[in-house]
């Protein structure tokens, strides 16, 4: 195989890759992870950019060095480049390439630690957050508003500009609750209540989905997150209270059965249903610190 063939091949492969990546109709407004609409998503995006940049510092020069070495040191007649078969050690070079990645990982590590801690707190401090309890079922999403008393299935409305604390559990296999434009995901697990802070800056409809496989209907576990100004959100709550039916224990039992569901609204739901479902699935064995955002103080009592 001739050198030209190889280089052309590399070029061709590169071009195809770039073409695939950029020219295929994925306009930037579809790359929703890169288009966050809230502070949590933005924090995550900044870390994404930082990590890309830091990796590029290594990847791009190394690719350039690779191409240079391949061209210069090919085994062909008349190649006058230096040939040193026994040269196999250089302390200086080794220090450099142990050192550079260590520095880069160090920088990235500092920002990672900061980021991890930032995301366990409400995104803004001066507004009172609201809580929404999320239960992933086979194969639908149930949302309950403990302060408003209403419940919805497969869609969720939130006030814009207000931090939302999602409390997550599963009544069935574990899933993962993900609204890419508002921020990252968190698992829903039977018998546990996990917490995830999200916030939308402005009104809009955001795509959400289950991210962890739960069986046959998993692909259909999508929902919209509809952010509205506080006043409109209040109206919506009132509207649901006035017009939607109440959710009974029977209704819940039906929801829990395997199958898909349309969007639904309920003006009320059985008292402490969320807590009861957690306990029923084994939550009585867990004693999670209600003030903590994670399970670090989890106590298993048995």
């Amino acid at each position, binding site marked *: 195989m001739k050198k030209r063939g*190889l280089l052309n091949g590399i070029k*061709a492969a590169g071009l*195809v*890759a770039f073409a*695939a*990546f950029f020219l*295929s109709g994925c306009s930037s407004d*579809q790359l*929703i*992870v890169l288009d966050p609409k809230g502070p949590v998503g933005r*924090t*995550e995006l900044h*870390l994404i950019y930082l*990590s890309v940049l830091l*990796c590029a510092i290594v*990847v791009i020069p*190394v690719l350039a060095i690779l191409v240079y070495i*391949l061209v210069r*040191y*090919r*085994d062909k007649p008349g190649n006058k480049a230096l*040939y*040193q*078969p026994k*040269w*196999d050690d*250089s302390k200086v*070079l*080794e220090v450099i390439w*142990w050192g550079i*990645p260590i520095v880069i*990982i160090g920088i990235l*590590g500092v920002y*990672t*630690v900061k*980021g*991890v801690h930032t995301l*366990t707190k409400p995104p803004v401090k001066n507004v009172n957050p609201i809580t929404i309890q999320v239960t992933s079922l086979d194969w639908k999403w149930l949302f309950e508003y403990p302060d408003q008393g209403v419940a919805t299935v497969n869609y969720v409305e939130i006030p814009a500009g207000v931090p939302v604390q999602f409390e997550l559990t599963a009544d*069935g*296999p574990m899933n*993962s609750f*993900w609204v890419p434009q508002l*921020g*990252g*995901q*968190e698992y829903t*697990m*039977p018998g*546990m209540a*996990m917490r995830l802070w999200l916030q939308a800056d402005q009104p809009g409809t955001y795509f959400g989905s*289950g*991210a962890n*496989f*739960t069986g046959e209907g*998993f*692909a259909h576990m999508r929902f919209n997150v509809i952010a509205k100004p506080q006043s409109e959100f209040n109206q919506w709550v009132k509207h649901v209270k006035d017009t939607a039916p109440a959710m009974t224990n029977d209704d819940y039992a039906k929801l829990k059965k395997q199958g898909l569901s349309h969007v639904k609204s309920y003006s009320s739901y059985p008292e402490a249903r969320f807590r009861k479902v957690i306990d029923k699935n*084994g939550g009585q064995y*867990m004693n999670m610190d209600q003030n903590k955002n994670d*399970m670090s103080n989890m106590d*298993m009592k048995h």
Partner: protein
Amino acid sequence: MLDNLKDFASHFFVTGDPLIYGADVAIGLTMAAIIFVLFYFKKWGWLWREWLTTVDHKKIGIMYIIASLLMLFRGGVDALLMRAQLALPNIHFLQSEHYNEIFTTHGTIMILFMAMPLMFGLFNIAVPLQIGARDVAYPFLNALSFWMFFFGAMLFNLSFVIGGSPAAGWLAYPPLSELTTSPGVGENFYIWGIQLSGVGSLASGINFTVTILKMRTKGMKLMDMPLFSWSVLASCLTILLAFPVLTVTLALLFIDRFAGAHFFTMLHGGNPMMYVNLIWMWGHPEVYIVVLPAFGIYSEVVSTFSKKKIFGYKSMVFSLMIISVLGYFTWVHHFFTMGASANVNAFFAITTMAIAIPTGVKIFNWLFTMFRGRIRITQPMLWTLAFIPTFLVGGATGVMLAVAPADYQYHNSYFLIAHFHQTLIGGVVFGYLAGLYYWWPKMFGFKLNVKLGLWAFWLWNIGFYVCFMPQYALGFMGMTRRVYTYGWDMGWAPLNLISSIGAVFMGIGFIFQVWQILYSIKYGERDTTGDPWDGHTLEWSIPSPAPEYNFAVLPEVKGRDDFWRRKEEGLDNKIKEKDLKPIHMPKNSGIPFIMSAFWFVAGFGFTFGWTWMIVIGLAGVAGCMLARSFSKNNDYYIPVEQIRKTESKYGRLV
């Protein structure tokens, strides 16, 4: 009676899908054809004596490789079926449940029944030859390892036509994999298929650790070992600690399913998170188990085809070992979003990123091995060169994923899918292919055709980028893994279509490789010297294919790259007749095959809960163990006369 039988058959055999009926017919015809050929050419005796009972590491290596290539075909067909289903929105080619089975079997097969055996195949082919040994430390155990893997893989594959395949993902997270949500036998097949082959893997890990530590030839210090052997040691040490975890985890899951325990259900005090932790305590080291030997192969190939000593040998050894240690401190990064505290996530984020440091160092060392060398672009070298950019990008996206807060966005998305395929194909598969092309002449005595190889290479590589680059973007577009369908409204269609086209390219690349092998058997360039690549290490100092005893006289080495030194000093490869002595070798044995077959029977019984079958299987296993423990006549000597004949045939006798 007839109705009962019909009812049983409709549950026992997988029915209702034309794809599977097609496969049934294909399997039946293939089996019939194999049996016919064996009868027609009267090859049963040959098959039994030469292959099924062999304890020769080279033959076992070849069987591993054949089995893994078959599994690569099966896993690849699974991949193509998935990409066909996802090529456009709302396709009704596969039903959800069928799709779920396919991605579950694709993942399991590719990691456990393709990558692992291909790796063990290369261990078997190269390690004893590289360290100047006549066999592995425990040849009988080596055969048992292979047959346990083989029957485990067969048991797992059987689920495709009998009983139904597992559908809970390749790591079978509970509660989804528990009896309530996965009531069929699929998960039992999964558990027992992996258990059997896992025992084989663990035994291989022990075998090669001991082989490398105890059986190096005279004068070969650890720091004189070729880097491939070092990488095998690193990989095997990791196996020793990781595979017992897998065995226990799956055993607990089976007890949950079989005996109604609650290890992994929250009810009655179990916890599915425990399973997720345990399975990744095996699962994460597992990716290093498969990639470390690939790093070893790259080191051999780069050094040989740059006509240069490997740059920074000590650094390379140190980075191999540090990766195998660090590999144990990263498992939580598979579930940053499962509610661990910020400090736990931060710890595992940093340990994960830290892996990039020794890995990056290796890439620099490979580059500087080529620097001031003379680079020959051969087939093994091509795959190695293709690996570098692929793994650089895959490694970079790995660092991106390690940033825990950013991972909240990538987790379970197609970004992740693209990342791990990039490292596993670009790192592991490319590496093993490089190794396969590199050691092929040593295994079979001929080189593989270059022209067909180039077609395969470019189809694989272009296909690879076309397939997986769009998936990074799909991740950013919110596409999650394991969805079997999606709508036009998501905007995912163009990229998915491109990705599917790339997958087809890789499939065609594989066909070219099969063609290449078949063509080269007949027309491939014969290797008469035993040293077709101008190699540096001991395996090239003996004839191709290696005689059953490997080295007529065990070599004595003086440092690294000893064979290269000998060639430079103008020493020849001849054996002196007076040095020949009878060689002590292990005898073939049918017990590994028979015992593994009984394990298969027991595994099948466990899968279906048929006590009579379990009893037969386990009794057979016990009988085989007894038979082995009472068998005394297990070794023999190859007489000098026979060695003399073999060596003079190659013209090596003075």
